[in-house]
């Protein structure tokens, strides 16, 4: 290595430099402190041997100057002095020196000290190098995290609209959360809620859950059923993520008009429906593996369905919540969570839960992302007056001037497996129907289509749909009959046309079933108890200019104004 020797005695300089050169070192000399500092600056030695007593500038001053040159790069400095009392040594160390050699110098000791100090300096260099690398990495990391955060904030839609119905609390374990709690509305105005928990936490988990978010939003907007959405989510996650990564998920769809909840839980803690009075009406356990584990063929996308008669809330959480530890390491636990939420808090339930959780995790290190969601299920059923179908005015029966026409005929297999409505809606989108009209058209078409299927083809009695138990019976009967359906068709016709200055949309649905006795049906419905089952059609009538049934009853046409 390169050694700087500073000594005002030429004989010493000669002696030391010969000795050290003999050991393979390169030597630079200086006669006094000032020269030493200048030489240090220009030669960048690896080690300095500094005589203390020198004219012009002594060893201590020179050392102090040298240390100021580059404080981050440590070069060992050994003092040489005849004076060896403690006071002197202290002065030297305080000036920034590292060791002290007594004069006359023992060359063997000099050699050893040089070697030892150089070894320490080498280690120091390595540490500095790593520290610099680490710092650079940290800064790059910080930039990447900022970008990631920007991206995530823009992908998760900040929807203020559901504040009345949805309360959410998400606490990430690190800067990024692998837990996602989002909502979106279907064209029929149902509320879809997604709680997803990707394996792990932090940035990697947050990235894992991105494809799920986009798909949820886009399929919900297009009107796909919960079943279709969850199936596609599973396909995506399985395809995109490695085998040891999956996404525990709860997907919920709430129809406030019909007071029904559809829910799919794969790998997440129990989801609970609790009334305002604190009675737990339903507990939906995870009955599927999380998303991304099963192949499409093995995957079961069927939701559980519930019709509520008393208003309440759906409470759900990610597994970070029951596992959340307090400062003593005790987990919050599912038991405590369930007992806490089954009390008559009315609408204050979410706050109670959130507060209890907050105080529990106070002061403890958070290991996993924690999410808590409460979705309100309430709303008065509107008792609508049953009336006749609105007779079509004579004009609506003429063809008018047609702009476009779209027909679709589905047989039993397609009816069973195809999510037809969103596909039809996609056509309407291409044909540029105003979004507000689009959603109403979706509602109307959905109602007519479902009636054709449920009543026309499956012969189900909507009377069952009035109470929670009957409703569940209805659902399982529907599943059973649908799976056995053969030799059946539903035809859907859409046409946009002009008639005496009006811009109209005609929606027609025909089913191959036997139809129904409309006169008898109207007689039955004068009974108030049946009002619940007819509400869908009532809604349609409110939206349309006309709604006409054929004689047989299996052919219905609605005309809707696009003005």
């Amino acid at each position: 290595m390169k050694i700087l020797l500073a000594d005002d005695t030429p004989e010493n300089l000669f002696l030391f430099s010969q000795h050290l050169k003999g050991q393979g070192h390169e030597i630079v000399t200086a006669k006094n402190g000032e020269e030493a500092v200048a030489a240090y600056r220009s030669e960048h030695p690896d080690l300095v041997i500094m005589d203390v007593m020198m004219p012009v500038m002594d060893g201590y001053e020179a050392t102090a100057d040298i240390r100021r040159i580059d404080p981050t790069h440590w070069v060992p400095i050994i003092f040489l002095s005849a004076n060896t009392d403690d006071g002197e040594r202290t002065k030297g160390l305080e000036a920034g020196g590292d060791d002290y050699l007594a004069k006359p110098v023992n060359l063997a000791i000099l050699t050893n000290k040089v070697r030892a100090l150089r070894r320490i300096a080498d280690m120091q260099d390595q540490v500095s190098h790593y520290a610099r690398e680490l710092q650079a990495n940290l800064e790059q990391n910080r930039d990447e995290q900022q970008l990631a955060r920007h991206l995530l904030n823009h992908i998760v839609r900040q929807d203020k609209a559901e504040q009345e119905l949805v309360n959410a609390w998400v606490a990430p374990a690190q800067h990024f959360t692998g837990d996602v709690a989002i909502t979106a509305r279907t064209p029929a105005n149902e509320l879809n809620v997604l709680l997803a928990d990707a394996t792990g936490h932090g940035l990697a988990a947050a990235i894992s859950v991105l494809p799920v978010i986009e798909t949820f939003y886009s399929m919900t907007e297009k009107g796909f059923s919960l079943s279709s959405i969850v199936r596609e989510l599973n396909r995506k996650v399985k395809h995109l993520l490695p085998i040891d990564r999956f996404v525990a998920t709860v997907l919920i769809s709430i129809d406030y008009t019909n007071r029904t909840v559809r829910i799919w839980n794969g790998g997440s803690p129990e989801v609970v429906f609790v009334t305002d009075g604190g009675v737990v009406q339903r507990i939906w356990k995870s009955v599927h593996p999380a998303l991304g584990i099963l192949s499409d063929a093995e995957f079961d996308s069927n939701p559980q369905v519930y019709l509520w008669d008393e208003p309440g809330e759906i409470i759900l959480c990610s597994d970070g919540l029951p596992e959340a530890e307090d400062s003593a390491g005790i987990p919050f636990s599912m038991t405590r969570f369930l007992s806490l939420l089954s009390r008559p808090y009315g609408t204050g339930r979410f706050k109670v839960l959130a507060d209890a959780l907050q105080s529990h995790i106070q002061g403890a290190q958070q290991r996993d992302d924690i999410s808590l969601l409460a979705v309100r299920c309430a709303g008065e059923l509107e008792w609508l007056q049953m009336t006749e179908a609105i007779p079509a005015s004579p004009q609506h029966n003429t063809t008018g001037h047609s702009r476009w026409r779209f027909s679709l005929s589905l047989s039993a297999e397609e009816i069973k497996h195809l999510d037809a409505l969103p596909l039809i809606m996609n056509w309407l989108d291409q044909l540029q129907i105003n979004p507000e009209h689009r959603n109403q058209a979706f509602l109307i078409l959905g109602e007519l289509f479902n009636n054709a299927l449920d009543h026309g083809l499956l012969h189900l009695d909507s009377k069952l749909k009035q109470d929670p138990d009957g409703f569940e019976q209805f659902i399982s009967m529907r599943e059973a009959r649908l799976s056995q359906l053969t030799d059946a068709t539903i035809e859907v016709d859409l046409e946009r046309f002009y008639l005496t200055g009006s811009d109209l949309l005609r929606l027609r649905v025909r089913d191959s079933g036997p139809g129904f006795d409309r006169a008898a049906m109207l007689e039955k419905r004068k009974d108030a108890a049946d009002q619940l089952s007819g509400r869908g059609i009532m809604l349609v009538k409110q939206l349309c200019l006309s709604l006409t049934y054929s004689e047989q009853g299996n052919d219905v046409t609605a005309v809707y104004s696009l003005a």
Partner: protein
Amino acid sequence: MASTVSNHISESKASLTINGRFDFSIHRDFRANYEQILGASGVRELDVDLKGVDYVDSSALGMLLLLREKATTKNIQMKLVGAQSAVRQVLEVANFGRLFAIS
């Protein structure tokens, strides 16, 4: 106390034993052990012994899924044995009974 992972191979039967917390911190040991087992020729059955496991998280479930895939390609029958109540609960919520024989 630190978690441990160990394995035992005896002709066609192998066992992979985990003690303590089964989480991301042991993933290297987990891998080293299962590679030994998968590397041994003639192994037909693999029991993952969870008797001594008191805690399992989602990364542990991920490790089991990964091992399951590798075992399947080598035609090795994999079982999860000895799961205690806390661990059993986690396996239930995850519906792992759909994927593994659990005893």
